[in-house]
């Protein structure tokens, strides 16, 4: 009996959270149109969320590309196919690694900071204070952060792919002595703009939406204590990573499966 009751409570709890999350998303999206009158709020958040993540994204992209270049070169050499390293690297990055890794890094870098910031604002009753002054915290605090995070992820994913391709170029051409023009022509003949690059961008827009939503919702939904904020931060990372990986499988099978 206790077991069943426990299960029921958990189910109700999850459904309640899901409902709150969707209502929250609705209110956030409703707050976005007014933001264009106060674009400074977005610029400031773009700085806090996007520019601050830039260094880590660039560095990790460079190393990802270099490792890909090394590993693929050694493996492909066994088949005498090291010329195709350019196309394999570019396809992997543009289709999968760019959007997915960026979203996961973003959850760890900016998502956690958004959750903690909003959670602490709630814990210190700044959000209630705003409501008292007839300032809607949804429009003033949540919506700019949501929009900035959503816009940042695709931009960061593009930068990630480009830098990683240059990193692989550095290893394959600079260190291992592949011909430079072979690298680029192979890439150009196998990477399609609509099929690969645009689909990758669509993916990163979807991941950006998920990452932004989870980060601001967990902050807003946190139990207003220090422990509650820390729990919410953990949940941001875990939930974003899991949903990005799950969604990636669905999107990949829709885009490239048929």
């Amino acid at each position, binding site marked *: 009996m206790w077991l069943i009751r426990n299960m029921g409570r958990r189910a109700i709890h999850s459904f309640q959270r899901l409902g709150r999350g969707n209502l929250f998303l609705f209110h956030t999206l409703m707050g976005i149109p007014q933001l264009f009158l106060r674009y400074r709020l977005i610029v400031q958040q773009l700085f806090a969320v996007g520019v601050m993540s830039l260094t880590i994204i660039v560095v990790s992209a460079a190393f990802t590309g270099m490792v890909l270049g090394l590993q693929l070169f050694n493996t492909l050499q066994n088949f005498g196919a090291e010329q195709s390293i350019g196309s394999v690297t570019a396809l992997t990055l543009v289709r999968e690694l760019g959007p997915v890794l960026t979203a996961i890094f973003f959850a760890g870098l900016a998502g956690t900071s958004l959750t903690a910031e909003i959670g602490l604002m709630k814990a210190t009753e700044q959000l209630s204070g705003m409501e008292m002054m007839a300032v809607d915290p949804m429009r003033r605090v949540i919506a700019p952060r949501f929009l900035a995070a959503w816009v940042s992820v695709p931009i960061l994913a*593009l930068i990630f792919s*480009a830098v990683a391709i240059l990193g692989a170029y550095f290893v394959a051409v600079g260190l291992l002595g592949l011909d430079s023009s072979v690298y680029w022509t192979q890439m150009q003949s196998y990477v399609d703009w609509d099929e690969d*690059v645009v689909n990758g961008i669509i993916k990163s827009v979807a991941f950006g939406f998920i990452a932004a939503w989870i980060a601001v919702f967990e902050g807003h939904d946190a139990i207003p204590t220090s422990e509650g904020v820390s729990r919410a931060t953990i949940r941001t990372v875990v939930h974003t990573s899991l949903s990005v990986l799950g969604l990636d499988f669905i999107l990949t099978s829709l885009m490239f499966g048929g």
Partner: protein
Amino acid sequence: MYSKTVEVWVGIFVAMGLAALFMLAMQVSNLSTMGSEEGYEVSLFFDDVAGLGPRAPVRMSGVRIGRVSSIAYDQQRFQAVVKVSIDNDFRSIPEDTTALILTEGLLGAKYIGFEPGGALENLVEGSKIHSTQSSLSLEKIIGQLFVKLTGGND
């Protein structure tokens, strides 16, 4: 907290994103070759085009001169019609050119190779090439081999 530096940094951030997009478009993907490819279209008739795909290259002596734009089936002739677009730089290709479906390396992708003939007229927009050689399939080669081997015993 809000200052000019913030705006400058956000500007740099967006510019980097656009630069990355530009690089993916021009250097990484085929967008650069797609737009500039002004050419004339020639129809080729093959018995078998298995393995050939749209955008496969057309080569002459190994040099890329165009690409496959569409593949269709002609119900009157019972043949596959491959429309290829030849770049405008290559205007003087003899009319009686032979088209072959070839393979890059042992297991590579299929492409179309042109072997020039000796005619004085050149290919123009809408020309048709009927002297073609289809792609070789392993099953057919084995089949022919069997016919030869068993035929030799009689």
